[in-house]
């Protein structure tokens, strides 16, 4: 299951407080160790597991939720649109952190899955607004009318005809949301709702790095940020090429 589990265990066992800065760097570890003498490199790698899972799963949930709600409300309009807009306004008017805390309190569970659900149910608003706008625009386009004229059902027009034409919006939203979910996980972990204290994620690393910085250990912050930026860049490149691959106008 976990290819680095054994290594991680032995590294954990070797933990002893090093206390001073010189020791932390003097070890043979490529990225140094933290205040407690733990290897920053293996922490970063282990942390990737949680962070990427939380980021992708929460972003996926939020994008799907936002896209479907946005599509339905933009397409049908009327009372459906009003209701979704009220829901949107409620979610949007509560400050983000407060909302996350409120839902965390209601769920009353901890752990990675809880983080995913919390971030997924709070993060859909931006996607919803964009998708609603796109559907409002596209539902009067001639190609959708033409699909109506040949007898395509509502669902077919919404998801077979329009969706591929607005998929670029979803992809961009997805990659942006992934980044913000990874960052939001930091806050949740910091507040004790997220990853348990003994678990590792890029979020907990950033939290620890705050204290580490006071004693001059800056490399933990660097490692976590570096890992995050590499992942985010890779994800953006992936969604960009996915968008191009889905666009027939781009010659492959």
């Amino acid at each position: 299951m976990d290819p680095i589990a054994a290594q991680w265990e032995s590294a954990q066992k070797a933990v002893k407080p090093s206390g001073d800065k010189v020791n932390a760097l003097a070890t043979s570890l490529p990225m140094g160790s933290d205040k407690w003498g733990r290897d920053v490199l293996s922490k970063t790698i282990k942390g990737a597991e949680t962070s990427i899972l939380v980021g992708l799963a929460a972003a996926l949930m939020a994008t799907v939720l936002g896209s479907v709600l946005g599509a339905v409300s933009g397409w049908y309009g009327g009372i459906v649109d009003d209701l979704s807009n009220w829901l949107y306004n409620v979610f949007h008017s509560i400050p983000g952190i407060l909302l996350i805390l409120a839902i965390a309190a209601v769920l009353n569970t901890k752990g990675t899955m809880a983080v995913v659900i919390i971030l997924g149910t709070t993060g859909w608003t931006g996607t919803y607004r964009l998708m609603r706008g796109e559907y409002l625009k596209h539902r009067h386009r001639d190609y959708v009318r033409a699909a109506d004229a040949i007898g395509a059902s509502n669902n077919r027009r919404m998801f077979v005809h329009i969706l591929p034409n607005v998929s670029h919006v979803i992809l961009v939203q997805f990659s942006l949301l992934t980044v913000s979910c990874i960052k939001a996980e930091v806050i949740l972990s910091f507040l004790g709702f997220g990853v348990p204290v003994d678990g590792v994620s890029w979020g907990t690393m950033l939290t620890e790095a705050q204290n580490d910085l006071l004693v001059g250990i800056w490399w933990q912050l660097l490692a976590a940020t570096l890992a995050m930026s590499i992942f985010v860049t890779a994800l953006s490149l992936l969604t960009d090429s996915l968008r191009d691959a889905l666009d027939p106008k781009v010659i492959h």
Partner: protein
Amino acid sequence: MKTLNSMATRRTPPPIAHISDNLLEVKNLTVDFISASKAPVRAVEEVSFVIPRERTVALVGESGSGKSVSALAIMGLLPSQNAKVALHSAIEYDGRSLLNLTRPEWQLIRGSRIAMIFQDPMTSLNPVYTVGYQLAEMLRIHKRVGGQEALSRARDLLEEVGIPEPQKRVHAYPHELSGGQQQRVMIAMALACEPELLIADEPTTALDVTVQRQIMQLLAELRERRRMAMLFITHDLGLVSEVADHAVVMRKGTVREAGPVKSIFSAPQDPYTKALLSCRPSAERQGKRLLTIDDWMSAQPSSGLVHQNFDKSDASAAFNTDQGSPMHASEHALLEVQNLRKVFKRSGNWFKRDDFVAVEDVSFKLQRGQTVGLVGESGSGKTTVGLCLLRLHEATAGKVLFEGQNLLDMSTQAFAKYKRRLQIVFQNPYASLNPRFTVGEILSEPMQLHGIGAGNADWEKRSLALLDKVGMPASALKRYPFEFSGGQRQRIAIARSLSLSPEVVILDEAVSALDVSVQAQVLNLLKDLQKDLGLSYLFISHDLEVVRYMSDTLLVMNKGQVVEQGDALRIYAQPQHSYTQTLLAAVPKVQHAMGV
């Protein structure tokens, strides 16, 4: 580089006239568009013409002919990164070369000596400033006059271009003016600095025919009064014959023919000019096949095409003999529309509803194999009628009887069966095809939805047959709509509507977005299909000539109401209603005897 001139002139026709006092001379203009990924595209090749002082020269051509690129080159507005003007090209304005001017030098010429009017006034005016402010801004920059004086001059200009109540309109925002008035404001802006040369790039294409007529009159008056020269760019030969002194016919970046308008119309030399003159549907061509560009380009001189020398008496004979067409005799129409009414609900304020009646009391009958034409200007409700018939809009009142069944009050499930039998082709072939579907998917989807045919192989076979029917190659099947030109896309849209073997096809401005030559091909195709498949058409268009060419009966609509209705030829020959008369009079007609 001058030596290249002699080499190049061999391919170009001689300049129009040797008038000593030429305001603008374009010599061997060649423009290439360069892009990183593709080979350079030659937009304009060796184009030469002159614009004499106080004369109007028309650049005529279809889309892609290079007429707009030539105008932009004259204005120095070509995108400098990727448009490259050949070194041997020359543009001389009043004896001075325009091609190597610096930015400050251009500012002294652009706007104040050469001014330009663009096609779409909606996008050329800034929506957040009043028209008075935008006019005054021109004066402040170029004439260096103060705020109050600039505003009063702006008022005078608005008055000159015929805007009613200029002292009030000067404070109006662009959206408060009609399309025609917006174009007048654009003309006022162009005139603000008293230019010597006015370049008008399709100034009336976005406007209705009656408004087009007024704007053309205005332009002609102003040119006379202000002693300007004008470069008039258009695709419409009728307009050219009305306003221009000289014409330059362009195609695919080269000049095909140039000369005085009179001689171009009476004795066109180039086959392309002949083709352009003859592919427009007109009274003389009723019931005859339209000749397309290909017919002319491939035709040998003095071949079988001589029959195109239409005899006027021929046409008038057709007018008088009311052939007692079957549609009056037969009682049971295939499609019958009774008192159709459509009201768009718009919420005004709390106390008053501000409803908009788009269609009021429209009734007509459509017989099998016949065509009903529906003609009117923008906002007349003609498109709404078409959409109501297919329940793409919900009609407010009235009946649509298809073989006696009312389509409007049946359930959605019941109506689904009728969707097979009534189809529609939309105006804009760029918008009506889903860009993410291949042509094969577009054509097989309707069959898939209605359970026609069995499986992919069968759908593909049927799609190929449809493509063949509309004159498209089989290779189109696996390609996407964006790979095709406007005319080809419209053929695909027609093929899609035919995939369900319908009995009635609603053609909503189906040829309006196409070039005249392509229009002729599509009209021929529609006529052929009607004959072969026994289709009935509801032909909706703003273009009287086209509607009349296609239709057996005609409905003229204005502001949601049918003002005149009856036999197409009769209405064209003897319009009864004053609106129909205005509409007919506004259509630009070729003024000179045609020698085609």
